């Protein structure tokens, strides 16, 4: 069950999608999201889906892995879909069944909302699948560097993020272990009402928190021992440098986004 959470999972590779500068990829995702929220017709959604499909193809990430990423948010997707489907008033009702009515706008909205969330999630996941978390945080750190002047602790935030990402698999594994150990003592996580189920989590959460604090403490010592002393004077194994492919990718991204916005103005 816990293994379904693939957030922050990176599949190493050597495709162009992997090689792009992380800053480029972050900017592309921002453009992609902007375009996605501007899309309001089948044509523009089609364009966005096509863009995603091309990127997925280039990245050689398996569709299965992307779809698996949708699983944890399946509930939200279905919920949004149903809400839009039944509770949007429109000019024409396609189905009327008691108080449940499906309007033409409702159907349209439902389909588009579901498409939008799915495309949004798959697009961002594609970025995390093809970008190692460290280069992702590197990219973010570089993009936000200007904010240091306003005393925003950019390096510290980036470091926190990369460590959090590094420990996600470790903590998931640990949770599995603790759950098995408590199950062996007769813990029951599957039955009972909401209150009972919440209470059943205590034997998992307490050890998990204690262990997380212990890990944090040991990691801090280990980092100090490796001469960590904040962002000052730090160099990088990988220096980020925009290359031709980055400019091309960004140009394409801007073109698509502008295109979608223009189409929207024409009501498409």
């Amino acid at each position: 069950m816990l293994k379904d959470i693939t957030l922050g999972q990176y599949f190493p590779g050597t495709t162009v999608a992997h090689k792009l500068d992380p800053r480029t990829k972050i900017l592309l995702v921002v453009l992609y999201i902007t375009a996605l929220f501007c899309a309001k017709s089948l044509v523009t959604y089609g364009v966005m889906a096509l863009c995603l499909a091309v990127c997925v193809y280039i990245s050689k990430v398996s569709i299965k892995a992307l779809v698996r990423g949708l699983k944890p948010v399946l509930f939200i997707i279905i919920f949004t879909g149903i809400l839009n489907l039944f509770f949007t008033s429109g000019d024409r009702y396609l189905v009327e069944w008691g108080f449940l009515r499906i309007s033409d706008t409702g159907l349209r909205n439902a389909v588009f909302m579901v498409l939008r969330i799915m495309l949004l999630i798959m697009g961002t996941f594609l970025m995390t699948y093809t970008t190692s978390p460290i280069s992702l945080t590197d990219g973010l750190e570089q993009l936000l560097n200007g904010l240091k002047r306003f005393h925003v602790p950019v390096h510290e935030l980036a470091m926190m993020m990369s460590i959090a990402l590094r420990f996600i698999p470790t903590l998931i594994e640990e949770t599995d272990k603790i759950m098995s150990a408590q199950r062996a003592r007769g813990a029951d996580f599957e039955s009972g009402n909401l209150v009972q189920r919440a209470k059943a989590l205590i034997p998992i959460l307490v050890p998990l928190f204690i262990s997380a604090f212990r890990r944090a403490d040991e990691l801090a010592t280990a980092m100090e021992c490796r001469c960590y002393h904040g962002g000052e004077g730090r160099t990088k194994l990988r220096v980020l440098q925009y290359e031709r492919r980055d400019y091309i990718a960004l140009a394409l991204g801007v073109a698509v986004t502008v295109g979608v916005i223009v189409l929207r103005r024409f009501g498409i």
Partner: protein
Amino acid sequence: MSTMIETESLRFAYPADEGGEPVFALRGVDLEIEKGSFVVVLGHNGSGKSTLAKTFNGVLLPAGGKVYVEGMDTLDEKLLLAIRQRVGMVFQNPDNQIVANVVEEDVAFAPENLGVPTEEIRRRVDDALRAVGMYEFVTHAPHLLSGGQKQRIAIAGVIAMEPDCIVLDEATAMLDPIGRQEVLSTVHKLNREKGITVILITHHMNEAEAADRVIVMDDGKVAMDGTPREVFVRVEDLRAMGLTTPDTVDLLDRLKKDGLDVPLDALTVEACADAIAKAVAGD
């Protein structure tokens, strides 16, 4: 030979619980560790061996006395970074010392902190990974490796600082026999080929067999100090300190008490068999 680390009547106390007395973990330790040597520090849990290790690079600071790393006082805050670069530290839990999601980025962490230029970091990362035999895993995710492999990555992360000394603070305690062997042969190789001083903290007696020097800690003090042979023949003293002797020594000790003419200092299986075969034949 010159001195790598020197302690002078070193004392250390952990802060007390409310109302209690502070607990002294080190009560006057005087040691001199030579450059290029392979030193094993033994002791039961709570003997102070791990505390001692943590004073060697200023993770813990002396409450009394001094620790000098290549002549630098660990109490001098300005020297702390230089000291930590000279003395690298590998800890018990491999999961809690790996910072990055990709092997090479983890190994690069220390040189990045030290401000080493990018091309130089690349070279150091590759060299360090080759030195621990993990080069083929350069782009792997560390959490998918075995315990022994993770510890070798941690060692590579330390080597990348180009230190003169590595301290392994019970770094083999959580490993299976294969992982333990991987780590041991790696540090022996580093000691032999690169002349790096190795200080190995452990409670596995057989890890001390190939050391130059064995230090036994008990109750915050140095209880024994000598070559493995000199230390392990003191069977009764070791037992009294909650430590065991290798089975080879135990057997020789019993046979000697039974009246057989055998030496006590045949530590390895082969040497032990030789000694017994000789004694039995000459009987």
